[in-house]
């Protein structure tokens, strides 16, 4: 079983320490929640895990494999997928194409086989097209397959973003505020999807401001404030932690609720 681990990782921008001595462990088959007030370093953490940022010190490994020198594309090819907070589609590509492009690493036909339309290449493309249709149906986007992704509603874009990240069949998926801006039914669907991913054996890092959602879903969680971990463990233990209540749950309830 694969494990994504961050050990004593620090990231500074100039004089500012965004993440300090962070330890984090995401296992396949579990949902790991990451919460904290704005500016706590959650997005920086996802940036570090997905290779968009390089740590100033510390180590990030995936099954003993050092990730700190790899670029985002190499990390993705190891089976670690991520979504973005902004839920940006690939504009000019249809909904179908947005998802099938997520299957890039599952295409193995050579350039020659593609150019000459060899049966092997055609068969591969057809098989993966079927998988795209399954994914689109799961997210209720089947009817919109041929639509340009820019025409989707905000909620649909959020699900398209997840569908695209899932298409590569990752071992670990990092979700950056997937619930932001969703209405109640969409939020319920998101919860269902995240549980399903875990049950299929994926490891999920769930970063969100939606405190009830994160507490309700995750198996273990980490709470950050000012770049450091202030509590981690099972949700029920974290909820009782005095530091968490002060820094986040009690201290800034309005912020959590407003999101």
């Amino acid at each position: 079983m694969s494990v994504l681990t961050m050990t004593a990782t620090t990231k500074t921008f100039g004089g500012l320490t965004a993440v300090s001595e962070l330890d984090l462990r995401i296992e396949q088959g579990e949902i790991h929640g990451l919460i904290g007030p704005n500016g706590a370093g959650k997005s920086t953490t996802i940036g570090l895990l997905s290779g968009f940022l390089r740590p100033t010190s510390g180590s990030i490994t995936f099954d003993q494999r050092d990730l700190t020198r790899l670029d985002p594309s190499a990390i993705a090819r190891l089976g670690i997928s991520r979504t973005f907070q902004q839920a940006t589609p690939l504009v000019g590509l249809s909904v179908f194409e947005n998802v099938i492009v997520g299957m890039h690493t599952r295409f193995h036909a050579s350039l020659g086989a593609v150019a000459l339309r060899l049966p092997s290449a055609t068969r591969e493309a057809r098989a993966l097209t079927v998988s795209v249709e399954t994914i689109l149906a799961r997210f209720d986007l089947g009817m919109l397959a041929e639509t340009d992704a820019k025409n989707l509603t905000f909620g649909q874009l959020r699900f398209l973003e997840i569908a695209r990240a899932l298409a590569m069949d990752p071992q670990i998926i990092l979700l950056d505020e997937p619930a932001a801006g969703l209405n109640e039914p969409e939020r319920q669907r998101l919860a269902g999807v995240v549980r399903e991913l875990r049950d299929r054996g994926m490891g999920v890092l769930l970063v969100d401001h939606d405190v009830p959602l994160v507490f309700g879903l995750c198996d273990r969680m980490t709470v950050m404030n000012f770049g450091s971990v202030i509590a981690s463990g099972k949700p029920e233990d974290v909820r009782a932690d005095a530091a968490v209540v002060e820094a986040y749950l009690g201290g800034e309830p309005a912020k959590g609720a407003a999101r």
Partner: protein
Amino acid sequence: MTEALRRRVERLTLAAIVVVVVLAPLGGSRLLLYSLTITAIYAIVTIALNVVLGLAGQVSFAQTTFMAIGGYGSALLTTRAHLNPWLALVVAALVALVVALGVGPPLLRLRGHYLAMATFALALGTDSFVGAATPLTNGSMGISGIPPLAIGSLSFADPLAFYVLSWVACAITLGFFATLATSYVGRAWRAIATGQDIAATLGIRLLQYKVLAFAIGAIMASIAGSLYAEFTSFVGPDLYDISIVVNIFLMLFIGGRGSYAGPLIGAALLTFAPEVLSGFEKAQNLIFFILLLVLLLLWPGGLLGRSQDAGSMADMLPLWLQRRLPSR
């Protein structure tokens, strides 16, 4: 224009092009055949740019560099090394490939404007180099007397035979483009063009795919350069000066980036415009550029391009008038 309508218009345009190309030799003049042959050759270069810019989104001005490698490669290898013209064409294309694989990786690490600037320098350098390297290229005099392509007893010195050859080459290039564009390779390019960071998170090797597009474009442009040299049996620095680079960009932008028929329409418009407008004599260029400006303002995505996000004048004009005219 909706995407479905755009596709239908594009299919009709392709059908119309086939009809014109097939019928032209029956009734057309020598001049028409000549212009259509030039159109086919420039369409190949425009398709090359369409791979690099239209699909992969990389603004590269290196087209004439690779055309020059094809043109001068064919000229030198046939007149000095006395190679078979077909073999010369293939060797030149391989040289273009090697050059593309050599300069591609450092250039394509640059993004946006920096890539444009660097390749623009390459285009400027090409023009000056072939003009100045007199011992090799015969300077501004160029190289003439390039022997024609032939298959057995069929010589492509015959204008009609070359006409057929050029359009067959163009059709093959377009077929290759269409196959790539609809494959996972084409989708990876388009993902890089619209969202480089997203493409990376999907495991797409950014530099490798950009270099691939650049190399394929280089081979296409080199073949077109060789064909042009074979057609006119002459190469000279004027064929690769900076105005040609601009023309190739105009062909693609007017025709429609990313589309199939666009490069052919663009190449035809720019090849035929001087003839059509020749009646205006000195005002010819002015009228031509005013028409271009209007075309690009009305259809920023090109005649056959996908509708762009940037509002076109055609969309914005009614709104603009609404805001400025007194309300009734």
